[in-house]
């Protein structure tokens, strides 16, 4: 019985310290040193309208934009998730075949693998540099821009995630598309 009384006391003490104080402290620190990322790394356009988060993929289907990786949740940032399909599942093959058709990939010019594979959370903001270059011709044509200009933009934006440990260079799709739109003006 004694244990229950002390248990209740300690439940209250622990809530006060590790929930209330701990959360309040980190909220204050985050607000002070990293207010932008603490709010979700939101990006705004010139008119001040939020256009998305630099950490989250969003849906792009028009030819003049770069497309992100497939999303099992259709880029829903309030109900995220992966496909959870086994590599041996036929469903995954069927889905990938559709993606291959959308990109018009051929055996001579195969699609970079990440453009056919859905990410874990369905919100991966990146594609590989190769995946962006693969789409450059389509984007350049749809925009009436020079291919070299689009490619130069990709190379400028790409980065090695993890430095020396990176298997290759990545590009943030939303940031790349924003840069494209800025180019036009």
């Amino acid at each position, binding site marked *: 019985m004694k244990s229950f009384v002390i248990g209740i006391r300690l439940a209250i003490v622990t809530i006060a310290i590790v*929930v209330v104080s*701990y959360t309040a402290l*980190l*909220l204050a620190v985050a607000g002070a040193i990293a207010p932008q990322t603490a709010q979700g790394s939101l990006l705004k356009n010139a008119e001040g309208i939020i256009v998305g988060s630099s950490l989250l993929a969003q849906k792009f289907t028009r030819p003049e934009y770069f497309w992100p990786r497939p999303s099992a949740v259709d880029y829903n*940032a309030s109900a995220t998730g992966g496909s959870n399909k086994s590599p041996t599942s036929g469903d995954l093959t069927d889905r990938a075949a559709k993606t291959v058709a959308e990109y018009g990939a051929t055996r001579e010019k195969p699609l970079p*693998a990440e453009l056919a594979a859905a990410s874990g959370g369905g919100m991966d*903001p990146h594609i590989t540099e190769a995946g962006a270059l693969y789409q450059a011709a389509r984007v350049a044509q749809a925009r009436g821009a020079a291919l070299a200009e689009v490619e130069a933009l990709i190379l400028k934006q790409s980065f090695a*995630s993890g430095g020396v440990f990176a*298997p290759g260079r990545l590009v943030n799709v939303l940031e790349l598309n924003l840069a494209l739109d800025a180019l036009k003006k």
Partner: protein
Amino acid sequence: MTAFLFVPLIVGGSALLSWPLGRYLKWAMDPEPGQAGLFDRLFRVFGGSFVGRQQGWKQYALSLLAFNVILFLVSFTLLALQQRLPINPDGKSALEGSLIFNTVASFVTNTNLQHYSGEVHLSYFSQLTLMWLQFVAPAVGLAALAAVARGAAGRREMGNFFLDLQRATFLVMLPACLIVGFIFVLGGMPMTLDGAVKATTLEGIEQVISRGPVAAFVAVKQLGTNGGGFFGPNSTHPFENPSFFTNMVSTVSIVVIPMACVWMFGRIVRRMRHAAVVFCVMLALMSARIATAVHYESAPTRAFAGLAVEQTTGNLEGKELRFGSAAGPLWAVVTTSTSNGSVNAMHDSLNPMTGLMPMIGMWLNEDFGGVGVGFVNMFVYIVLGVFVAGMMVGRTPEYLGRRVESHEVKLAVLALFAHSLFILAPAALFAATDWGVMALHNVGSHGFSEILYEFSSASANNGSGFEGLGDNNVPWNVATGLVMLLARFIPIILPLGIAGSLAVKKSAAESAGSLGVDNLTFGIMLFATILFIGALTFFPVAILGPVAEHLQFMR
């Protein structure tokens, strides 16, 4: 190749870091007389004079259970009232009863299996309630280990549960989480109580972006071998793991306290060489699984074979690019080795043999295991290993100078038997009935793997899943909830009993005739004991699930 160098660096770095941390854990959890008087006085203020009283193993276990009953009742009530409570900016509605039961059982037992999806179902108030459990549940585990170690060291008085609980919460979990939480804030995780925000995408579609106090939540999720994510897809979600850097810090955070627990045990029983042998056995078991997982996962996914897709990269389905190629299988093994259960890649989409590695981790559940409880599980294997070795050479088995007799071995076998029973029996039941079959997301042997994985995860108090499984319904919520509760407390109480029984035995001076527990021979013996028990128990189901899938499709 440098992409794979990352793996030994993370594992080696964590091992190095665990050494000073182990020294700190000993100071925090079992201070020498007069060493931590200030904190002990403070904890007596919080808990009352009872906190200063020594307990035998039975009282210790009863206090532990009583505290968990309170955790269960308080959090159940708070979750059940979610729709009436504040800090609910996105207006989340009431939760279904069996889901509340499952969730509370899951977080009280340090499992953090999630049949809900954080951003869909929970208010921030409920998330913070669960964050509270993510602090105190590992503290319960650490307290249990401190008590077991004191018993093994021959101290009849095994400490006071409420004192140990506070030491673990305030001196271990809290400072560690503040440091890592701060790093995560710098690393770009959201940390806000504001609700979801609406964005208008470049193509003019509305995108609702859920967020919350993520950095605080994720820090304790990783450090406490909890693994309960703020968002549905856990650490694959860019908000829970924004970069290569946060992924690296997360991976280390998952494994470093369980590793340090081994050194803490060694310091309490004053046998560092013994601790080093056990540490090496654990490291060998985990490293073997990491190597296997990284190997199998570097193969391209079979799903794209024959399509016009590059076949040069590994399996990318369910993975995030920013972490690099080896990070997924590394994390998959580390998170299941330690009963953490957070994921940075979807385990359901791993190549079949890769998916077997997390399952083996949960079946063995001791290298390095959950905070505190991992070594408690290993303690059971040690007792058994010592006993078998003694029988083989015809000597009286001894552990740390005390005789291991039939009573201790019975309890040890019971603990191991409970774990395998809680996995295999319900997995068989669900595989044979509509409860399991109707919930499957993938068919054939992979479907069986989904059921097997879920109960392995529940019984190992891990919390990861083959998440395709449709498990948010009454049969699954109730069954896994019960498994989690039984599989948490039986393997804590039985080893407490073993330690309590060892503690009261007369210590015999070790002689040339005793079996040493701090040499290579013992290491091999322990390794073999774990391997044989594990293989004999789980080989058939491994064949039916992932191995069958591999043989059928991947060759």
